[in-house]
């Protein structure tokens, strides 16, 4: 599974992307797995209220199941326009 990071999430983690095998059933479980990795992940995911998530390029929430999913992205609230 590809995990993408944008804006300050990308900056805190220090890279735009991870590719990983995960047994996480939901986005929330994936976040727990990532937080346990290293302090920079812990810092990026410290406040879930400040984060948004997309699953296979559609906006989703942290309870979204990951079965069959190929791409998850984490980022701050969007500021387009």
């Amino acid at each position, binding site marked *: 599974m590809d995990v993408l990071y*944008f804006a300050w999430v990308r900056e805190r983690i220090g890279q735009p992307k991870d590719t990983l095998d995960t047994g996480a059933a939901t986005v929330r479980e994936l976040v727990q797995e990532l937080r346990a990795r290293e302090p920079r992940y812990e810092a990026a995911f410290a406040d879930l209220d400040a984060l948004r998530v997309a699953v296979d*390029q559609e906006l989703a929430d942290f309870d979204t199941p990951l079965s069959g999913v190929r791409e998850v992205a984490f980022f701050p609230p969007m*500021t387009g326009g």
Partner: protein
Amino acid sequence: MDVRVQDVEFDLGAELNRFAARQTGMGAVVSFTGIVRDIAEGLDVMQIEHYPGMTEKALTKISQEAKTRWSLGDVLVIHRHGALRADDLIMMVATSAPHRVDAFAAAEFLMDYLKSRAPFWKKEVTKSGEDWVAAKDEDEDALTRWN
């Protein structure tokens, strides 16, 4: 429907003229353009990051939604990414409709969704440092009027 995400500049007037010229039976054309403002401390660069692949999908989906909600002729969305400077045009939307009420409502709807639901992030780089632009509560609140 025409949705473009690009790092190069666009010509607002030329795009709007082309858009208006290809309409048939549409009495109303509305456009919105967002421009980089020079913030207090002196803006050096506004960096716009986006999510390639998802961005185009999100803009297309929002445009299609507008076409189901109002009687529209056509929709145009152009949004830049990359390094922009003060007074650069960030993006534009244009809508056409038989009647002005629909063209206005659809343009405002597109802007409200694009602000908070299209995967763009702005970073302001000034002499004193750089900051990601925070999302505004009022932009999130603006969406509730379309429910």
